[in-house]
């Protein structure tokens, strides 16, 4: 076919300029407000009802944990055997335990142990796991080999099993020791996530650019690599906060967690078990409080993950 042949529908066509106005090449759009990555994530979060539901629930639990006396004037440790397993009545909306303690007061006061153990363990795990993971991922080589094997050793021990074995050999138990023991067996997960995240960030061009500016390796790690690798760690921290609360309750239920002098949901669930058939409400309230708290943190973790990693979002 000759070059000059024009087939039907293929005549030389030029769009009218008024319909296809030419824009300046690569002009900066000044209209939109500036937004950082975190600002963008916040905007995402703000729109999710699930985020607000979990935030309100978590705030409520935190306030209850901080000042339980706002919510009840009854002493959770006060026992009147005459009230043993009594039904709810005025001033005692959830009824009484076998030992005649007020279930409502115990549920309110139990929040503190859970929240303290959850927060403390999460902070410890994030610090230790984050630092170990960052060093292993960033420096690699012998550091990676040593730290990764070390975390594998702890990873191999199931959280609750390891905690039971260690705690039973401890003399004194408190919220601090329980948190320490939980952290000891939980940090490898955070370390692994941090390591993977750092490995990904480490090879980015902005890291090479920073090194070419003359920053030392440590400066690059602290200023550029860690802030960019933090997203997944924040997500796992939020979710594991709930897991730690559940783990503490498990230990207390098994009688190896917090001592009975500290009011805790796990301990109450354990004590209520004996009267489960006849009086299930004694078990119901601490269990419901526990579930709701754990659920709130896991929901929050979910929405935070969606906001920080839009790719993982399900439509």
């Amino acid at each position, binding site marked *: 076919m000759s070059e000059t042949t024009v087939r039907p529908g293929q005549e030389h066509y030029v769009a009218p300029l008024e319909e296809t106005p030419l824009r300046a090449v*690569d002009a900066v759009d000044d209209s939109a407000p500036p937004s950082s990555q975190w600002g963008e994530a916040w905007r995402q979060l703000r729109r999710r009802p699930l985020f607000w539901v979990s935030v309100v629930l978590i705030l409520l639990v935190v306030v209850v944990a901080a000042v339980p006396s706002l919510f009840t004037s009854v002493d959770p440790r006060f026992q009147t055997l005459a009230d043993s397993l009594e039904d709810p009545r005025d001033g005692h909306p959830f009824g009484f335990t076998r030992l005649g303690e007020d279930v409502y007061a115990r549920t309110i006061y139990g929040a503190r142990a859970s929240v303290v153990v959850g927060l403390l363990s999460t902070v410890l795990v994030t610090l230790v796991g984050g630092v170990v993971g960052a060093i292993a991922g960033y420096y690699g080589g012998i550091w990676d080999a040593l730290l990764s094997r070390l975390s594998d050793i702890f990873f191999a021990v199931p959280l609750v099993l390891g905690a039971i074995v260690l705690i039973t050999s401890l003399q004194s138990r408190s919220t601090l020791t329980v948190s320490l023991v939980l952290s000891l067996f939980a940090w490898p997960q955070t370390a692994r996530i941090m390591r993977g995240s750092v490995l990904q960030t480490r090879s980015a061009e902005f890291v090479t*650019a920073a090194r070419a500016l003359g920053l030392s390796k440590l*400066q690059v790690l602290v200023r550029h690599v860690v802030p960019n690798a933090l997203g997944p760690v924040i997500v796992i921290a939020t979710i594991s906060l709930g897991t730690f609360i559940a783990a503490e309750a498990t230990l207390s239920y098994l009688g190896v967690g917090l001592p009975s002098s500290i009011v805790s949901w796990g301990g109450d669930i354990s004590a209520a078990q004996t009267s489960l058939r006849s009086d299930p409400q004694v078990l119901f309230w601490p269990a419901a409080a526990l579930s709701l708290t754990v659920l709130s943190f896991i929901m929050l973790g979910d929405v935070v993950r969606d906001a920080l990693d839009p790719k993982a979002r399900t439509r």
Partner: protein
Amino acid sequence: MSHRETSPRDGGPRGAAVTGAPLLQVEDLAVDFRSSGRDVHAVRGASLTVHAGQTVAIVGESGSGKSTTAQAVIGLLPGTGRVVGGKILLDGRDIAHASRREFVGLRGSSIGMVPQDPMSNLNPVWTVGFQVREALRANGLDKGVSAKARAAELLKEAGLGDAERRAKQFPHEFSGGMRQRALIAIGLASRPRLLIADEPTSALDVTVQRQILDHLQSLTTSLGTAVLLITHDLGLAAERAEHLVVMYKGQVVESGPALEILQRPQHPYTQRLVAAAPSLASRRLESAAVRAGIVRQAERAAVETHEVAVAEAVADLPDTEVATEEVIRVEHLTKVFTIRGSGSRGEKLRAVDDVNFAVRRGTTTAIVGESGSGKSTVAQMVLNLIPVTDGRVTFDGVDITTLDKRQAFDFRRRVQPIFQNPYASLDPTYSIFRVVEEPLRVHGIGDAKSREARVRDLLDKVALPASSMRRFPNELSGGQRQRVAIARALALHPEVVVCDEAVSALDVLVQGQILTLLNDLQAELGLTYLFITHDLAVVRQIADDVVVMQNGKVVEAAPTDTVFDAPQEDYTKALLEAIPGGSIELGA
């Protein structure tokens, strides 16, 4: 856009050769994507016609809607995309709103597709032969033993030697070019009448690119397959297609016979595109040397007319007289990498092998080569980012491999890099202000106030408004980010800037803009550039000297004009011939 009359006139200029009814007719196509609750118009009123056996190219930048148009034709719009208007007539039947089942029937047998990225479009867990057979089976063509033979035949047809053995291999055993051939075999397996080729070779090296396109062309010609070629490269499109469709911001701005569009572009966008097409442009941007002459002239004129202020301003400009002084000298430079995990002692790879060249102050030297030629490794060693195995890099007479910590830190101020990927070279958690300020802070230059003034000044130099200071990299386009990267590189008043594929990831118009900017800055600041690129067209526009590398060795090193006009080595000649559209003559 106005609805275009597409009445099939009987015949046409050459009635016998031209059948009236087109194979594919897209009329007033509109495609929307839904994004955070809003409808984004990806394509608006696009019309195009493809006749049987013809090659038609859609040309446009990223975001122009060219790929979306093609995806609508084959019913594979990603995510939330949907056709909201217009018609897609295949053999006169409207398939714009065809059901999923109808499309499954059409795909493969009527419309085939060769995707863009050969690295991710083959399933790594199945053999290549299996994937070709899958295409046959899906269209009910061949099953069992005969399919095996047919698959090998198709692979052979797509230009793979030893096809029967190759069919039993896995994708990771194939090179990029071979994978693309396998994808072509799959695309043509059921003999579609229309083949959509979406940037089929843009992930490949130029010499491989040419071979694959040549082969695809001869194959589709012999089979009588019509091809809808999607590309960002005007030169490539003009060379391969009879009919061009130019898209811009989701609309067709111009369409018509390829040569006519190239020689007499009517729409201002097309004119801009033709003027900027790197593969067609063949001039060095005004070099520093030429500008120096202009400056001297201005100086003389100012002195003569006693315009003191002007004379002073001109005298303040750096002396851009072309020096023959060498600022970087690379001698017997060698880099050996040990590849882990292969063999007990690890396999040695000589990435850079006895490389010698020199860079003169105030000029641009380009290192050209295909992927794996070692050009980026050379850049990293010049930047003192990785240790050299052997040989030396001297900067201003000092061997940089012998610098102590303090000297190495000071060296950083004098040599700065700009990297390829503008999406990865800026820390996403840093605001533009912090990105540009960081080098000043690291080197302890000035106080907070003077640093801010300097950042403003730098952003102004790279033509970004001061308001962009508070923005974050994710809000800027690729070209804008690259300008931020340039501002960062210039913050410390470096003498040498190493540009590692600094414009390869950008659209042509933006590419032209950045190259002009770099060139202006060179003249203004007396910078020396070491330009690492695979794109000879870019070399032609910016470089004074060229070093051609292949497999870690220098093949040819000479002034740019010498290399382009009289290449000495076969490899250089092959590279030059592979530039798409290089042979097309443009109208003035």
